[in-house]
Protein backbone atom coordinates (compact mmCIF):
# COMPACT_ATOMS: atom_id res chain seq x y z
CA UNK A 1 0.00 0.00 0.00
CA UNK A 2 1.23 3.46 -0.81
CA UNK A 3 2.32 5.57 2.13
CA UNK A 4 -0.31 8.33 1.72
CA UNK A 5 -3.06 5.73 1.57
CA UNK A 6 -1.74 4.06 4.69
CA UNK A 7 -1.67 7.39 6.48
CA UNK A 8 -5.21 8.11 5.35
CA UNK A 9 -6.41 4.75 6.60
CA UNK A 10 -4.88 5.27 10.00
CA UNK A 11 -6.30 8.79 10.32
CA UNK A 12 -9.63 8.17 8.64
CA UNK A 13 -11.65 9.27 11.67
CA UNK A 14 -9.70 12.49 12.06
CA UNK A 15 -9.97 13.38 8.37
CA UNK A 16 -13.69 12.56 8.20
CA UNK A 17 -14.37 14.46 11.42
CA UNK A 18 -12.53 17.56 10.26
CA UNK A 19 -14.36 17.47 6.92
CA UNK A 20 -17.67 17.43 8.80
CA UNK A 21 -16.46 20.33 10.87
CA UNK A 22 -15.61 22.23 7.69
CA UNK A 23 -19.13 21.53 6.40
CA UNK A 24 -20.51 22.97 9.65
CA UNK A 25 -18.33 26.07 9.64
CA UNK A 26 -18.39 26.90 5.94
CA UNK A 27 -21.68 28.88 5.95
CA UNK A 28 -20.43 31.03 8.82
CA UNK A 29 -17.30 31.83 6.85
CA UNK A 30 -19.43 32.76 3.86
CA UNK A 31 -21.59 34.98 6.07
CA UNK A 32 -18.45 36.66 7.40
CA UNK A 33 -16.89 37.21 3.99
CA UNK A 34 -20.09 38.49 2.43
CA UNK A 35 -20.56 41.02 5.21
CA UNK A 36 -17.78 42.92 3.39
CA UNK A 37 -19.43 42.61 0.01
CA UNK A 38 -20.92 45.43 -2.06
CA UNK A 39 -23.57 43.70 -4.13
CA UNK A 40 -24.91 45.32 -7.29
CA UNK A 41 -28.49 44.03 -7.17
CA UNK A 42 -30.86 43.48 -4.30
CA UNK A 43 -29.40 40.12 -3.30
CA UNK A 44 -26.12 39.45 -1.58
CA UNK A 45 -25.36 36.03 -3.07
CA UNK A 46 -22.49 36.77 -5.47
CA UNK A 47 -19.17 38.49 -4.64
CA UNK A 48 -18.66 41.91 -6.19
CA UNK A 49 -16.20 44.10 -4.31
CA UNK A 50 -14.83 44.73 -0.84
CA UNK A 51 -16.60 47.33 1.23
CA UNK A 52 -16.95 48.33 4.87
CA UNK A 53 -20.26 50.10 4.31
CA UNK A 54 -22.41 47.59 6.09
CA UNK A 55 -20.14 47.46 9.13
CA UNK A 56 -20.15 51.24 9.41
CA UNK A 57 -23.91 51.43 9.76
CA UNK A 58 -25.43 48.04 10.59
CA UNK A 59 -28.79 49.61 11.46
CA UNK A 60 -28.93 51.48 8.17
CA UNK A 61 -31.57 49.10 6.83
CA UNK A 62 -35.13 50.01 7.65
CA UNK A 63 -36.74 47.95 10.42
CA UNK A 64 -33.87 45.48 10.81
CA UNK A 65 -32.56 46.63 14.18
CA UNK A 66 -36.12 47.10 15.38
CA UNK A 67 -36.82 43.46 14.63
CA UNK A 68 -33.61 42.52 16.36
CA UNK A 69 -34.65 44.41 19.49
CA UNK A 70 -38.06 42.76 19.38
CA UNK A 71 -36.50 39.32 19.11
CA UNK A 72 -34.24 40.02 22.07
CA UNK A 73 -37.21 41.25 24.07
CA UNK A 74 -39.34 38.21 23.29
CA UNK A 75 -36.45 35.84 23.96
CA UNK A 76 -35.78 37.54 27.30
CA UNK A 77 -39.34 37.24 28.52
CA UNK A 78 -39.83 33.74 27.13
CA UNK A 79 -36.61 32.62 28.84
CA UNK A 80 -37.63 34.12 32.15
CA UNK A 81 -41.10 32.58 32.25
CA UNK A 82 -40.11 29.21 30.76
CA UNK A 83 -37.17 28.90 33.16
CA UNK A 84 -39.26 29.60 36.24
CA UNK A 85 -42.14 27.32 35.23
CA UNK A 86 -39.82 24.60 33.92
CA UNK A 87 -37.70 24.62 37.07
CA UNK A 88 -40.78 24.21 39.23
CA UNK A 89 -41.92 21.23 37.15
CA UNK A 90 -38.47 19.66 37.23
CA UNK A 91 -38.34 19.86 41.03
CA UNK A 92 -41.81 18.38 41.35
CA UNK A 93 -40.88 15.51 39.00
CA UNK A 94 -37.69 14.61 40.81
CA UNK A 95 -38.59 15.29 44.41
CA UNK A 96 -42.22 14.31 44.87
CA UNK A 97 -44.62 11.48 44.32
CA UNK A 98 -47.95 12.36 42.79
CA UNK A 99 -50.71 11.00 40.61
CA UNK A 100 -50.76 11.11 36.82
CA UNK A 101 -46.97 11.17 36.58
CA UNK A 102 -47.11 9.29 33.27
CA UNK A 103 -49.52 11.75 31.70
CA UNK A 104 -47.44 14.69 32.86
CA UNK A 105 -44.25 13.15 31.51
CA UNK A 106 -45.93 12.66 28.12
CA UNK A 107 -47.20 16.23 28.13
CA UNK A 108 -43.63 17.40 28.60
CA UNK A 109 -42.11 14.99 26.10
CA UNK A 110 -44.62 15.46 23.26
CA UNK A 111 -43.77 19.08 22.34
CA UNK A 112 -40.21 17.91 21.70
CA UNK A 113 -41.35 14.90 19.65
CA UNK A 114 -43.59 16.87 17.33
CA UNK A 115 -42.68 18.66 14.11
CA UNK A 116 -42.70 22.36 14.85
CA UNK A 117 -45.09 23.07 12.01
CA UNK A 118 -47.78 20.95 13.71
CA UNK A 119 -47.53 22.91 16.95
CA UNK A 120 -47.45 26.16 14.98
CA UNK A 121 -50.55 25.30 12.99
CA UNK A 122 -52.57 24.00 15.92
CA UNK A 123 -51.71 27.03 18.05
CA UNK A 124 -52.86 29.22 15.20
CA UNK A 125 -56.24 27.43 15.10
CA UNK A 126 -56.59 28.08 18.83
CA UNK A 127 -55.84 31.78 18.45
CA UNK A 128 -58.15 32.07 15.43
CA UNK A 129 -60.97 30.34 17.29
CA UNK A 130 -60.51 32.56 20.33
CA UNK A 131 -60.35 35.60 18.10
CA UNK A 132 -57.00 36.57 19.60
CA UNK A 133 -55.07 39.44 18.03
CA UNK A 134 -51.88 37.92 16.56
CA UNK A 135 -48.73 39.78 17.59
CA UNK A 136 -46.21 40.16 20.39
CA UNK A 137 -48.22 38.27 23.00
CA UNK A 138 -49.21 35.32 20.82
CA UNK A 139 -45.57 34.90 19.82
CA UNK A 140 -44.45 35.12 23.44
CA UNK A 141 -47.04 32.54 24.54
CA UNK A 142 -45.90 30.18 21.79
CA UNK A 143 -42.22 30.59 22.64
CA UNK A 144 -42.77 29.94 26.34
CA UNK A 145 -44.71 26.79 25.39
CA UNK A 146 -41.99 25.16 23.32
CA UNK A 147 -39.10 26.32 25.53
CA UNK A 148 -40.73 24.90 28.64
CA UNK A 149 -40.03 21.24 27.88
CA UNK A 150 -36.36 21.88 27.15
CA UNK A 151 -35.91 23.72 30.44
CA UNK A 152 -37.58 20.85 32.29
CA UNK A 153 -35.22 18.32 30.73
CA UNK A 154 -32.10 20.37 31.49
CA UNK A 155 -33.00 21.16 35.09
CA UNK A 156 -34.32 17.66 35.79
CA UNK A 157 -31.02 16.10 34.77
CA UNK A 158 -29.16 18.32 37.21
CA UNK A 159 -31.58 17.91 40.12
CA UNK A 160 -31.63 14.14 39.63
CA UNK A 161 -27.87 13.91 39.95
CA UNK A 162 -27.96 15.97 43.14
CA UNK A 163 -27.39 14.08 46.38
CA UNK A 164 -30.55 14.43 48.52
CA UNK A 165 -28.29 14.15 51.56
CA UNK A 166 -27.00 17.66 50.85
CA UNK A 167 -30.39 19.13 51.68
CA UNK A 168 -30.68 16.87 54.69
CA UNK A 169 -27.27 18.07 55.83
CA UNK A 170 -28.45 21.67 55.51
CA UNK A 171 -31.56 20.96 57.56
CA UNK A 172 -29.42 19.14 60.09
CA UNK A 173 -27.22 22.25 60.29
CA UNK A 174 -30.03 24.57 61.37
CA UNK A 175 -31.17 25.78 57.95
CA UNK A 176 -34.95 26.01 57.72
CA UNK A 177 -36.80 25.12 54.49
CA UNK A 178 -36.31 28.55 52.92
CA UNK A 179 -32.64 28.78 53.91
CA UNK A 180 -32.04 25.24 52.68
CA UNK A 181 -33.52 26.08 49.31
CA UNK A 182 -31.68 29.38 48.90
CA UNK A 183 -28.29 28.32 50.27
CA UNK A 184 -27.98 24.75 49.08
CA UNK A 185 -30.61 23.57 46.60
CA UNK A 186 -30.60 26.59 44.32
CA UNK A 187 -26.80 27.07 44.10
CA UNK A 188 -26.30 23.41 43.30
CA UNK A 189 -29.11 23.30 40.75
CA UNK A 190 -27.93 26.60 39.22
CA UNK A 191 -25.80 25.13 36.39
CA UNK A 192 -28.79 23.08 35.20
CA UNK A 193 -31.10 26.07 35.43
CA UNK A 194 -28.57 28.24 33.58
CA UNK A 195 -28.19 25.62 30.86
CA UNK A 196 -31.97 25.43 30.49
CA UNK A 197 -32.26 29.21 30.34
CA UNK A 198 -29.52 29.52 27.72
CA UNK A 199 -31.15 26.84 25.61
CA UNK A 200 -34.52 28.57 25.93
CA UNK A 201 -33.01 31.90 24.90
CA UNK A 202 -31.31 30.39 21.87
CA UNK A 203 -34.44 28.50 20.80
CA UNK A 204 -36.69 31.51 21.21
CA UNK A 205 -34.33 34.01 19.60
CA UNK A 206 -33.79 31.88 16.52
CA UNK A 207 -37.30 30.49 16.18
CA UNK A 208 -38.91 30.91 12.84
CA UNK A 209 -41.66 28.38 12.09
CA UNK A 210 -43.92 28.92 15.12
CA UNK A 211 -43.34 32.65 14.91
CA UNK A 212 -44.15 32.62 11.21
CA UNK A 213 -47.61 31.17 11.96
CA UNK A 214 -48.48 33.22 15.03
CA UNK A 215 -46.84 36.62 14.59
CA UNK A 216 -49.47 38.31 12.50
CA UNK A 217 -47.77 41.45 11.22
CA UNK A 218 -45.17 41.50 14.00
CA UNK A 219 -41.65 41.12 12.61
CA UNK A 220 -38.97 39.36 14.65
CA UNK A 221 -35.42 39.14 13.39
CA UNK A 222 -35.84 35.69 11.76
CA UNK A 223 -39.06 36.97 10.20
CA UNK A 224 -37.12 39.93 8.83
CA UNK A 225 -34.50 37.64 7.30
CA UNK A 226 -37.22 35.45 5.81
CA UNK A 227 -38.88 38.46 4.27
CA UNK A 228 -35.62 39.76 2.91
CA UNK A 229 -34.99 36.43 1.19
CA UNK A 230 -37.99 37.38 -0.92
CA UNK A 231 -37.45 41.12 -1.25
CA UNK A 232 -33.68 41.33 -1.29
CA UNK A 233 -31.00 40.54 1.28
CA UNK A 234 -29.19 43.54 2.73
CA UNK A 235 -25.50 43.06 3.61
CA UNK A 236 -26.29 44.26 7.11
CA UNK A 237 -27.89 40.88 7.85
CA UNK A 238 -24.46 39.31 7.48
CA UNK A 239 -22.97 41.92 9.78
CA UNK A 240 -25.48 41.02 12.49
CA UNK A 241 -24.95 37.29 11.91
CA UNK A 242 -21.18 37.64 12.11
CA UNK A 243 -21.35 39.86 15.18
CA UNK A 244 -23.58 37.34 16.99
CA UNK A 245 -21.16 34.56 16.12
CA UNK A 246 -18.14 36.56 17.28
CA UNK A 247 -19.74 37.64 20.55
CA UNK A 248 -20.81 34.08 21.33
CA UNK A 249 -17.35 32.66 20.63
CA UNK A 250 -15.72 35.39 22.70
CA UNK A 251 -18.03 34.73 25.64
CA UNK A 252 -17.35 30.98 25.49
CA UNK A 253 -13.60 31.41 25.18
CA UNK A 254 -13.50 33.98 27.99
CA UNK A 255 -15.55 31.67 30.19
CA UNK A 256 -13.14 28.82 29.47
CA UNK A 257 -10.13 30.98 30.27
CA UNK A 258 -11.60 32.26 33.53
CA UNK A 259 -12.67 28.85 34.79
CA UNK A 260 -9.33 27.38 33.73
CA UNK A 261 -7.42 30.08 35.60
CA UNK A 262 -9.61 29.67 38.66
CA UNK A 263 -8.99 25.92 38.67
CA UNK A 264 -5.26 26.40 38.35
CA UNK A 265 -5.29 28.99 41.13
CA UNK A 266 -7.23 26.63 43.38
CA UNK A 267 -4.84 23.79 42.62
CA UNK A 268 -1.85 25.93 43.51
CA UNK A 269 -3.13 26.72 46.98
CA UNK A 270 -1.39 24.77 49.75
Amino acid at each position, binding site marked *: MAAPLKWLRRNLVVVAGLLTLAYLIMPNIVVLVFSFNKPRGRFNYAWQEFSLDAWKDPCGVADMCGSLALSLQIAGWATLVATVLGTLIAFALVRYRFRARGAINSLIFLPMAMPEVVMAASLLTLFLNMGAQLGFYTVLIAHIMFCLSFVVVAVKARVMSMDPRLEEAARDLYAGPVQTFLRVTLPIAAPGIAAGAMLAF*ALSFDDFIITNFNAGSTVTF*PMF*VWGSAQRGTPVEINVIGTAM*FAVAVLVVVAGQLISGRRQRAAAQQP
Partner: protein
Amino acid sequence: MSTSTLTEAPPPVPQPQSPEQPVRRTVPTRRRLVPYLLLLPGILWLVVFFALPLVYQASTSVQTGSLEEGFEVTWHFQTYWEALQEYYPQFIRSLLYAGTATVLCLLLGYPLAYLIAFKAGRWRNLLLVLVIAPFFTSFLIRTLAWKTILADGGAVVGALDALHVLDVTNWLGWTEGNRVLATPMAVVTGLTYNFLPFMILPLYTSLERIDGKLHEAAKDLYASPATTFRKVTFPLSMPGVVSGTLLTFIPASGDYVNAELLGSTDTKMVGNVIQSQFLRVLDYPTAAALSFILMAIVLLMVTVYIRRSGTEDLL
Protein backbone atom coordinates in the same frame (compact mmCIF):
# COMPACT_ATOMS: atom_id res chain seq x y z
CA MET B 1 -30.51 29.92 69.55
CA SER B 2 -27.06 30.41 71.02
CA THR B 3 -24.30 27.90 71.44
CA SER B 4 -24.58 27.61 75.18
CA THR B 5 -28.20 26.56 75.26
CA LEU B 6 -27.30 23.55 73.21
CA THR B 7 -25.01 22.00 75.76
CA GLU B 8 -27.12 22.78 78.78
CA ALA B 9 -29.95 20.51 79.64
CA PRO B 10 -33.06 22.15 78.23
CA PRO B 11 -36.01 22.75 80.53
CA PRO B 12 -38.59 20.00 80.51
CA VAL B 13 -41.39 20.59 78.09
CA PRO B 14 -44.92 19.50 78.96
CA GLN B 15 -45.74 16.38 77.04
CA PRO B 16 -48.97 16.39 75.13
CA GLN B 17 -49.45 12.66 75.30
CA SER B 18 -47.94 9.81 77.23
CA PRO B 19 -45.18 8.08 75.26
CA GLU B 20 -46.61 4.67 75.99
CA GLN B 21 -49.59 5.32 73.78
CA PRO B 22 -48.52 4.83 70.18
CA VAL B 23 -49.75 7.63 67.96
CA ARG B 24 -49.72 7.15 64.21
CA ARG B 25 -48.52 10.17 62.38
CA THR B 26 -49.50 10.97 58.83
CA VAL B 27 -48.06 13.36 56.27
CA PRO B 28 -49.81 16.72 56.63
CA THR B 29 -52.12 17.63 53.77
CA ARG B 30 -50.21 20.81 53.01
CA ARG B 31 -47.07 18.84 52.22
CA ARG B 32 -48.94 16.50 49.93
CA LEU B 33 -50.20 19.47 47.91
CA VAL B 34 -46.71 20.84 47.25
CA PRO B 35 -45.99 18.86 44.04
CA TYR B 36 -49.30 19.87 42.52
CA LEU B 37 -48.64 23.52 43.28
CA LEU B 38 -45.21 23.25 41.67
CA LEU B 39 -46.61 21.56 38.59
CA LEU B 40 -49.72 23.69 38.19
CA PRO B 41 -48.52 26.79 36.31
CA GLY B 42 -46.25 25.01 33.82
CA ILE B 43 -48.59 22.13 33.17
CA LEU B 44 -51.52 24.49 32.79
CA TRP B 45 -49.50 26.38 30.19
CA LEU B 46 -48.82 23.18 28.25
CA VAL B 47 -52.44 22.06 28.49
CA VAL B 48 -53.83 25.37 27.25
CA PHE B 49 -51.22 26.17 24.62
CA PHE B 50 -50.11 22.72 23.49
CA ALA B 51 -52.82 20.11 24.17
CA LEU B 52 -55.89 22.28 23.71
CA PRO B 53 -54.69 23.62 20.32
CA LEU B 54 -54.41 20.02 19.11
CA VAL B 55 -58.08 19.58 20.00
CA TYR B 56 -58.96 22.75 18.14
CA GLN B 57 -56.95 21.60 15.18
CA ALA B 58 -58.74 18.25 15.22
CA SER B 59 -62.07 20.02 15.21
CA THR B 60 -60.96 22.40 12.45
CA SER B 61 -59.93 19.47 10.29
CA VAL B 62 -63.52 18.15 10.16
CA GLN B 63 -65.12 21.52 9.47
CA THR B 64 -66.49 22.79 6.19
CA GLY B 65 -67.32 26.27 5.05
CA SER B 66 -65.50 29.29 3.73
CA LEU B 67 -63.70 32.29 5.10
CA GLU B 68 -66.62 34.57 4.30
CA GLU B 69 -69.40 32.42 5.75
CA GLY B 70 -67.40 30.92 8.55
CA PHE B 71 -66.50 27.31 9.23
CA GLU B 72 -68.65 24.75 11.01
CA VAL B 73 -68.00 21.25 12.35
CA THR B 74 -69.72 18.88 9.94
CA TRP B 75 -67.60 15.79 10.65
CA HIS B 76 -66.38 15.98 7.10
CA PHE B 77 -63.69 13.30 7.32
CA GLN B 78 -63.36 13.32 3.55
CA THR B 79 -61.02 16.28 3.90
CA TYR B 80 -58.36 13.84 5.11
CA TRP B 81 -58.81 11.62 2.09
CA GLU B 82 -58.79 14.52 -0.33
CA ALA B 83 -55.75 16.07 1.32
CA LEU B 84 -53.84 12.79 1.09
CA GLN B 85 -54.82 12.28 -2.53
CA GLU B 86 -53.75 15.72 -3.53
CA TYR B 87 -50.60 16.05 -1.47
CA TYR B 88 -49.18 12.53 -1.13
CA PRO B 89 -46.11 13.45 -3.25
CA GLN B 90 -45.21 16.13 -0.70
CA PHE B 91 -45.65 13.65 2.13
CA ILE B 92 -43.41 11.09 0.48
CA ARG B 93 -40.88 13.79 -0.33
CA SER B 94 -40.86 15.00 3.28
CA LEU B 95 -40.20 11.54 4.66
CA LEU B 96 -37.63 10.80 1.97
CA TYR B 97 -35.71 14.06 2.42
CA ALA B 98 -35.88 13.91 6.20
CA GLY B 99 -34.82 10.25 6.19
CA THR B 100 -31.91 10.90 3.82
CA ALA B 101 -30.81 13.90 5.85
CA THR B 102 -30.94 11.82 9.03
CA VAL B 103 -28.77 9.08 7.56
CA LEU B 104 -26.33 11.67 6.22
CA CYS B 105 -26.22 13.37 9.62
CA LEU B 106 -25.37 10.06 11.26
CA LEU B 107 -22.65 9.26 8.71
CA LEU B 108 -21.13 12.73 8.89
CA GLY B 109 -21.69 13.32 12.58
CA TYR B 110 -20.37 10.04 13.96
CA PRO B 111 -16.73 10.54 12.94
CA LEU B 112 -16.72 14.06 14.33
CA ALA B 113 -18.36 13.00 17.61
CA TYR B 114 -15.87 10.12 17.85
CA LEU B 115 -12.99 12.45 17.11
CA ILE B 116 -14.05 14.87 19.84
CA ALA B 117 -14.73 12.14 22.38
CA PHE B 118 -11.63 10.00 21.95
CA LYS B 119 -8.95 11.71 19.85
CA ALA B 120 -9.21 15.43 20.44
CA GLY B 121 -7.22 15.58 23.69
CA ARG B 122 -6.72 19.20 24.64
CA TRP B 123 -8.55 20.38 21.51
CA ARG B 124 -11.77 18.84 22.77
CA ASN B 125 -13.32 22.03 24.15
CA LEU B 126 -12.36 24.05 21.09
CA LEU B 127 -13.97 21.50 18.78
CA LEU B 128 -17.13 21.46 20.88
CA VAL B 129 -17.32 25.25 20.69
CA LEU B 130 -16.91 25.05 16.92
CA VAL B 131 -19.82 22.60 16.72
CA ILE B 132 -22.10 24.78 18.82
CA ALA B 133 -20.95 28.23 17.72
CA PRO B 134 -22.72 28.29 14.31
CA PHE B 135 -25.98 28.14 16.29
CA PHE B 136 -25.44 31.68 17.40
CA THR B 137 -25.88 33.02 13.90
CA SER B 138 -29.53 32.88 12.94
CA PHE B 139 -30.15 29.66 11.02
CA LEU B 140 -31.97 31.54 8.28
CA ILE B 141 -28.86 33.62 7.56
CA ARG B 142 -26.74 30.47 7.47
CA THR B 143 -29.22 28.74 5.20
CA LEU B 144 -29.09 31.69 2.83
CA ALA B 145 -25.31 31.28 2.75
CA TRP B 146 -25.86 27.93 1.06
CA LYS B 147 -27.36 29.84 -1.85
CA THR B 148 -23.93 31.36 -2.33
CA ILE B 149 -22.03 28.12 -1.75
CA LEU B 150 -24.15 26.10 -4.16
CA ALA B 151 -24.59 28.93 -6.67
CA ASP B 152 -24.65 28.06 -10.36
CA GLY B 153 -21.17 28.19 -11.82
CA GLY B 154 -19.66 28.43 -8.34
CA ALA B 155 -16.65 26.54 -7.08
CA VAL B 156 -18.62 23.73 -5.45
CA VAL B 157 -20.75 23.02 -8.50
CA GLY B 158 -17.67 23.26 -10.71
CA ALA B 159 -15.78 20.77 -8.60
CA LEU B 160 -18.72 18.34 -8.50
CA ASP B 161 -19.00 18.63 -12.27
CA ALA B 162 -15.29 18.04 -12.80
CA LEU B 163 -15.39 14.96 -10.58
CA HIS B 164 -18.41 13.69 -12.53
CA VAL B 165 -20.44 13.60 -9.36
CA LEU B 166 -23.12 15.59 -11.08
CA ASP B 167 -23.46 12.92 -13.74
CA VAL B 168 -24.33 10.40 -11.07
CA THR B 169 -26.69 12.71 -9.19
CA ASN B 170 -28.37 13.77 -12.43
CA TRP B 171 -28.94 10.13 -13.24
CA LEU B 172 -30.41 9.60 -9.76
CA GLY B 173 -32.64 12.63 -10.24
CA TRP B 174 -31.07 14.51 -7.34
CA THR B 175 -29.72 17.29 -9.52
CA GLU B 176 -30.54 18.75 -12.88
CA GLY B 177 -28.09 19.71 -15.61
CA ASN B 178 -25.34 21.88 -14.24
CA ARG B 179 -27.36 23.03 -11.25
CA VAL B 180 -27.38 22.01 -7.63
CA LEU B 181 -29.45 24.92 -6.34
CA ALA B 182 -33.21 24.40 -6.66
CA THR B 183 -32.80 20.61 -6.73
CA PRO B 184 -33.54 17.89 -4.14
CA MET B 185 -29.83 17.70 -3.40
CA ALA B 186 -29.74 21.34 -2.33
CA VAL B 187 -32.70 20.82 0.00
CA VAL B 188 -31.19 17.69 1.57
CA THR B 189 -27.84 19.45 1.91
CA GLY B 190 -29.56 22.26 3.76
CA LEU B 191 -31.55 19.91 6.01
CA THR B 192 -28.45 17.87 6.82
CA TYR B 193 -26.53 21.02 7.62
CA ASN B 194 -29.26 22.50 9.78
CA PHE B 195 -29.77 19.48 12.00
CA LEU B 196 -26.23 18.07 12.11
CA PRO B 197 -25.39 19.58 15.54
CA PHE B 198 -28.50 17.88 16.97
CA MET B 199 -26.95 14.59 15.89
CA ILE B 200 -23.40 15.32 16.99
CA LEU B 201 -24.14 16.45 20.54
CA PRO B 202 -26.10 13.38 21.75
CA LEU B 203 -23.60 11.12 19.96
CA TYR B 204 -20.74 12.87 21.69
CA THR B 205 -22.47 12.65 25.08
CA SER B 206 -22.98 8.89 24.82
CA LEU B 207 -19.50 8.25 23.38
CA GLU B 208 -17.84 10.34 26.05
CA ARG B 209 -19.40 8.15 28.75
CA ILE B 210 -17.71 5.03 27.39
CA ASP B 211 -14.84 3.95 29.60
CA GLY B 212 -11.60 3.99 27.65
CA LYS B 213 -10.62 0.77 29.40
CA LEU B 214 -13.33 -1.02 27.43
CA HIS B 215 -11.38 -0.35 24.24
CA GLU B 216 -8.25 -1.75 25.86
CA ALA B 217 -10.18 -4.76 27.10
CA ALA B 218 -11.53 -5.39 23.60
CA LYS B 219 -8.03 -5.12 22.13
CA ASP B 220 -6.75 -7.43 24.82
CA LEU B 221 -9.43 -9.95 23.84
CA TYR B 222 -8.18 -10.08 20.24
CA ALA B 223 -10.66 -7.61 18.67
CA SER B 224 -9.39 -5.64 15.69
CA PRO B 225 -10.17 -1.90 15.64
CA ALA B 226 -13.10 -2.56 13.29
CA THR B 227 -14.47 -5.33 15.50
CA THR B 228 -13.99 -3.20 18.59
CA PHE B 229 -16.08 -0.50 16.99
CA ARG B 230 -18.78 -2.88 15.80
CA LYS B 231 -19.04 -4.95 18.99
CA VAL B 232 -18.22 -2.45 21.72
CA THR B 233 -18.24 1.22 20.77
CA PHE B 234 -21.24 1.36 18.49
CA PRO B 235 -23.61 -0.69 20.70
CA LEU B 236 -22.67 1.45 23.69
CA SER B 237 -23.37 4.63 21.74
CA MET B 238 -26.88 3.46 20.81
CA PRO B 239 -28.66 5.89 23.17
CA GLY B 240 -26.89 8.74 21.39
CA VAL B 241 -27.69 7.30 17.97
CA VAL B 242 -31.37 6.97 18.85
CA SER B 243 -31.81 10.42 20.36
CA GLY B 244 -29.67 11.98 17.62
CA THR B 245 -31.73 10.44 14.82
CA LEU B 246 -34.96 11.51 16.54
CA LEU B 247 -33.71 15.06 17.08
CA THR B 248 -32.79 15.19 13.39
CA PHE B 249 -35.70 13.38 11.76
CA ILE B 250 -38.60 14.98 13.65
CA PRO B 251 -37.82 18.62 12.91
CA ALA B 252 -36.59 17.80 9.39
CA SER B 253 -39.87 16.09 8.48
CA GLY B 254 -41.87 19.22 9.22
CA ASP B 255 -39.38 21.74 7.88
CA TYR B 256 -40.27 24.08 5.05
CA VAL B 257 -37.48 26.64 5.30
CA ASN B 258 -34.86 24.66 3.38
CA ALA B 259 -37.31 23.61 0.66
CA GLU B 260 -38.43 27.22 0.29
CA LEU B 261 -35.00 28.87 0.29
CA LEU B 262 -32.89 26.24 -1.49
CA GLY B 263 -35.47 24.30 -3.51
CA SER B 264 -37.95 24.83 -6.28
CA THR B 265 -41.66 24.12 -6.78
CA ASP B 266 -40.70 20.51 -7.47
CA THR B 267 -39.10 20.07 -4.05
CA LYS B 268 -41.98 21.29 -1.88
CA MET B 269 -42.40 19.34 1.32
CA VAL B 270 -45.52 18.88 3.38
CA GLY B 271 -44.46 21.73 5.66
CA ASN B 272 -44.62 24.09 2.68
CA VAL B 273 -48.14 22.95 1.92
CA ILE B 274 -49.33 23.37 5.49
CA GLN B 275 -47.76 26.79 5.66
CA SER B 276 -49.27 28.05 2.44
CA GLN B 277 -52.70 26.53 3.12
CA PHE B 278 -52.76 28.15 6.54
CA LEU B 279 -51.19 31.49 5.81
CA ARG B 280 -51.93 32.17 2.15
CA VAL B 281 -54.76 30.01 0.80
CA LEU B 282 -56.55 30.13 4.15
CA ASP B 283 -58.10 26.69 3.62
CA TYR B 284 -58.01 25.85 7.30
CA PRO B 285 -59.67 22.40 7.25
CA THR B 286 -57.26 21.02 4.66
CA ALA B 287 -54.28 22.57 6.42
CA ALA B 288 -55.39 21.16 9.77
CA ALA B 289 -55.95 17.71 8.26
CA LEU B 290 -52.50 17.73 6.66
CA SER B 291 -50.91 18.81 9.91
CA PHE B 292 -52.73 16.02 11.75
CA ILE B 293 -51.64 13.39 9.26
CA LEU B 294 -48.03 14.55 9.57
CA MET B 295 -48.26 14.38 13.35
CA ALA B 296 -49.74 10.89 13.24
CA ILE B 297 -47.07 9.61 10.84
CA VAL B 298 -44.21 11.08 12.84
CA LEU B 299 -45.50 9.89 16.22
CA LEU B 300 -46.13 6.41 14.81
CA MET B 301 -42.65 6.19 13.30
CA VAL B 302 -41.02 7.51 16.46
CA THR B 303 -42.89 5.04 18.68
CA VAL B 304 -42.05 2.07 16.48
CA TYR B 305 -38.45 3.20 16.21
CA ILE B 306 -38.02 3.59 19.96
CA ARG B 307 -39.65 0.21 20.63
CA ARG B 308 -37.50 -1.58 18.09
CA SER B 309 -34.27 -0.04 19.21
CA GLY B 310 -35.10 -1.04 22.76
CA THR B 311 -34.49 2.35 24.27
CA GLU B 312 -37.87 3.12 25.82
CA ASP B 313 -36.19 4.43 28.90
CA LEU B 314 -34.99 7.41 26.85
CA LEU B 315 -38.42 8.85 27.38
